[in-house]
């Protein structure tokens, strides 16, 4: 042993620690956990490649097939243009919704307990995971846009529009990642969680404006899709990326509100998962 270990100062737990306000602590913890998630992501590039295939199939097969179907009122857009933001949002959703399973995996591995014994706010643990979901979501978003370019989608490449789209993807990832963690906190086992993830993905994706305009849906489904946070993400992205008319004020208000609620709820249920 060449270098000595630090002995615990006698006043360590009382006063010897750097004191920071709760917000600074939260930011520092989120940064530490996000860095670790980033280091983990960098080790598995194949996974990113495989994930990029699904949006290719949606746009290439589903988009190509349905664009032959007359009568989908896309507001003058080609159908592939119309569904590109929807497919982008969907791929972000599919990634984020698996994070509850990730959290259960961490719990089963003993990692969650170990993190929860550190002086870290529960919300930081949740946001750290959301960061990983957002990074994955953003890589996929780039892939979707490139595929769109190949398929001739007229994407608006203005830097500010893209920056705003990044914001939408981050909020969307956080919302669904936290929704997933919150459900994991309720059901607590991996098997139930896997089943439920698939179960909730269907209504989230299809009871929305991702693949068709809401006006086309039966009345009850129109109401349901108004309560679906995905609808507001797609609306904002369709406006930003394709230039379709969008109600940005409403979209942002809903997305920010839902994100705050989801982070808080997931953080509150996390101890139940670790128990």
């Amino acid at each position, binding site marked *: *042993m*060449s*270098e*000595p*270990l*630090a*002995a*615990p*100062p006698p006043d*360590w*737990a*009382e006063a010897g*620690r*750097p004191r*920071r306000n709760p917000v600074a*602590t939260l930011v*520092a*913890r989120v*940064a*530490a*956990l996000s*860095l*670790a998630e980033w*280091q*983990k992501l960098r*080790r*598995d590039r194949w996974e990113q490649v495989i994930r990029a295939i699904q949006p290719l199939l949606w746009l290439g097969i589903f988009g190509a097939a349905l664009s032959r179907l007359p009568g989908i009122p896309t507001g003058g857009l080609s159908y592939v243009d119309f569904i590109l933001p929807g497919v982008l949002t969907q791929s972000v959703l599919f990634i984020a919704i698996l994070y509850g399973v990730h959290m259960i995996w961490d719990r*089963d*591995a*003993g*990692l969650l*307990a*170990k*993190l*929860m*014994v*550190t*002086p*870290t706010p529960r919300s930081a643990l949740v946001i750290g995971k959301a960061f990983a979901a957002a990074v994955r979501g953003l890589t996929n978003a780039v892939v979707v846009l490139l595929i769109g370019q190949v398929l001739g989608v007229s994407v608006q490449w203005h830097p500010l529009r893209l920056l705003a789209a990044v914001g939408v993807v981050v909020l969307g990832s956080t919302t669904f990642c936290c929704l997933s963690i919150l459900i994991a906190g309720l059901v607590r086992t991996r098997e139930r969680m896997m089943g439920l993830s698939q179960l909730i993905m269907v209504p989230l994706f299809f009871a929305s404006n991702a693949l068709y305009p809401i006006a086309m849906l039966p009345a009850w489904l129109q109401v349901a899709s108004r309560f679906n946070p995905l609808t507001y993400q797609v609306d904002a992205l369709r406006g930003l990326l394709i230039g379709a008319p969008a109600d940005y004020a409403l979209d942002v208000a809903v997305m920010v509100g839902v994100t705050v609620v989801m982070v808080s709820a997931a953080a509150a249920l996390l*101890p139940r998962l*670790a*128990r």
Partner: protein
Amino acid sequence: MTGGFALTCRQLRVTFGSAVAVDGVDLTVREGEIFGLLGPNGAGKTTTLRAITSLLPVPPGHIQVFGHDVARAPMAVRRAIGYVPQLLSAEGSLTARQNVALFARLYDVPRRRRRAAVTAALAAVGLTEVADRPAATFSGGMVRRLELAQALVSAPRLLVLDEPTIGLDPVARAGMWDRITAIRRETGMTVLMTTHYLAEAQQWCDRVALMSGGQIRVVGRPEELVATHGVADLDEVFRAHAGDRAADGQDEPGSIRDVRAARRTASRLG
């Protein structure tokens, strides 16, 4: 304020539904000692540790760590504790150094001291040579030592180890004990650990408590317990107190899940 006690438990009781996992445990751990909580699987050892480390909700007034009530001041308790759970829980895709650095950050080790603290913690457990290899390439014994480094990097006052030598081969187990005792000698930190290897506890612990059926049956220095009972070793002391309960393998809630999880972790870590 703490009266020389690192930990005091008073009438700790933990139930899961109708099952009583911990049934009125009174326990004091003195500053600077290595204290072993012994007992068979399902005795309530792990549950007791989970309550002490703030993972289980416990009403105020039952557990104090260096004078801080776990229920009232969980953050202060967490700052004082370094915890190594029973399962191999290092992040396999991160290097040893990244694994330890994460915990240095989570405990607010100041940036200017962080690199040195991480290096020192890795050196203390003998992982300097392999510090930049992913933990997935490590043997079980190396992962255990890495986890010890993760727990040590914040210079905790109380090191909590849940079955630190379980699943390790005899050489790795002896290595683990050498590290733990050397670290205690160097830093003076208090160590609280569970184990069901009574021979190890007899050799290495200053004091032990024998637990069974959620209760503490007897507490003392290993050699005193052996002497006062007029028997050969702790095994026989335990049999005198726990009787057949030691063998009936009452499962702790979640224990099957934990075993499965341990196997999954083993395969994940390679």
